[in-house]
């Protein structure tokens, strides 16, 4: 059986305008609806299941079940790892055309990497392909090492199905080894703050907009683009 080397980076160009494109979110940060069962954090091998998150859900009705990163900020504002409200703002601005009917949350930490790569990642890609009508998928990780690797495995599977993707990574060294088709690294953002800090809606929107814009800028596949966000770092300095 032929197996694609990770050095070979799948890449789907985005043919349509952003303003006419439908966008979905996939996160490894353990996000799910409060009325859905949480991920099994009692099993140290991890949980290979995923949850479909309805687009109509109020962001206050989302939560995180994940025990391998500090999700205190996401508990306060889910948009720091799952940017559903900034996405709605970009829709209202006319920057994107539509939001997908469903998004995906899973807990990216697992010791069952082979199953994650060969079963869960293709299953998530198939769900995105067949159920969401997405043209673009924005992805985020959770924990620093494993999540930021498995999310790229999912990203590559989605890209191979002809859907353009962009990862927002806050663990670029881990993500880079897996060769993401496209990725943005907001320089200096800590684990659990893929989009910024809680209650920084303008910053979250800016990061998301920049990530989606990479789909039209055609960086070299596998390259991670670093951007500076002084608004994030200024708050960091104030807190220190």
């Amino acid at each position, binding site marked *: *059986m032929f*197996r694609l080397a*990770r*050095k070979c980076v799948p890449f789907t160009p985005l043919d349509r305008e952003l303003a006419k494109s439908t966008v979905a979110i996939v996160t490894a940060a353990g996000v799910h609806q409060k009325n859905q069962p949480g991920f099994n954090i009692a099993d140290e*091998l991890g949980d290979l299941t995923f949850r479909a998150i309805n687009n109509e859900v109020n962001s206050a009705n989302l939560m995180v079940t994940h025990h391998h990163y500090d999700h205190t900020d996401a508990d306060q504002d889910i948009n720091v790892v799952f940017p559903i409200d900034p996405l709605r703002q970009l829709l209202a601005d006319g920057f994107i055309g539509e939001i997908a009917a469903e998004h995906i949350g899973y807990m990216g930490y697992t010791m069952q990497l082979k199953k994650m790569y060969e079963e869960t990642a293709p299953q998530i890609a198939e769900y995105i392909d067949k159920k969401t009508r997405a043209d673009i998928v924005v992805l985020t990780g959770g924990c620093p090492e*494993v999540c930021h*690797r498995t999310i790229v495995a999912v990203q590559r599977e989605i890209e191979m199905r002809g859907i353009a993707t962009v990862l927002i990574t806050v663990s670029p060294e881990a993500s880079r080894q897996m060769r993401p088709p496209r990725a943005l690294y907001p320089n200096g953002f800590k684990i659990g703050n893929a989009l910024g800090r809680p209650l920084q809606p303008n910053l979250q929107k800016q990061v998301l907009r920049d990530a989606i814009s990479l789909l039209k800028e055609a960086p070299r596949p596998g390259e991670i683009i670093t951007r500076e966000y002084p608004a994030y770092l200024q708050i960091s300095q104030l807190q220190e």
Partner: protein
Amino acid sequence: MALEIGDSAPDFELKSHHEGKAIKLSDFRGKKNVLIAFYPLAFTAVCSAQIPSYEADLSRFEDHDTQVLAISVDSVPSHSAWAKSLGGITYDLLSDFEPKGAVAKEYGVYREGAGISERALFVIDKEGKVVYKEVHEISKQPDNEVIFDVLRKL
């Protein structure tokens, strides 16, 4: 003295986490290339990502006619328990336990004082020669694609 590229890889016999079975490097001479992955300790963060990454890529190593052997100073029971906690490791985790770190010392990758080995990778070709050596920053997981680049050229 540190082992260098082009040197003959010192033979060793160590016990595997698979029921303590003895594994000799020379068993693979003339048959398979060998990736030897020295790692610091079982049940630690980076090792717990690195070791399953070889399991996930095992079929690609097999495509390149390569056996993976991972070595640390942990005991056989410790390796067995760890492998179970990782969901099962089918290749061999070898115990460089007694005398402690003897193989790591012979390969020049033992951290005196710390009592552990470096995070170091060696590729040994079928003739038993070292064709690749890299001592990694201990907090960083090595990139398997670098190894596949080496194996592709053997």
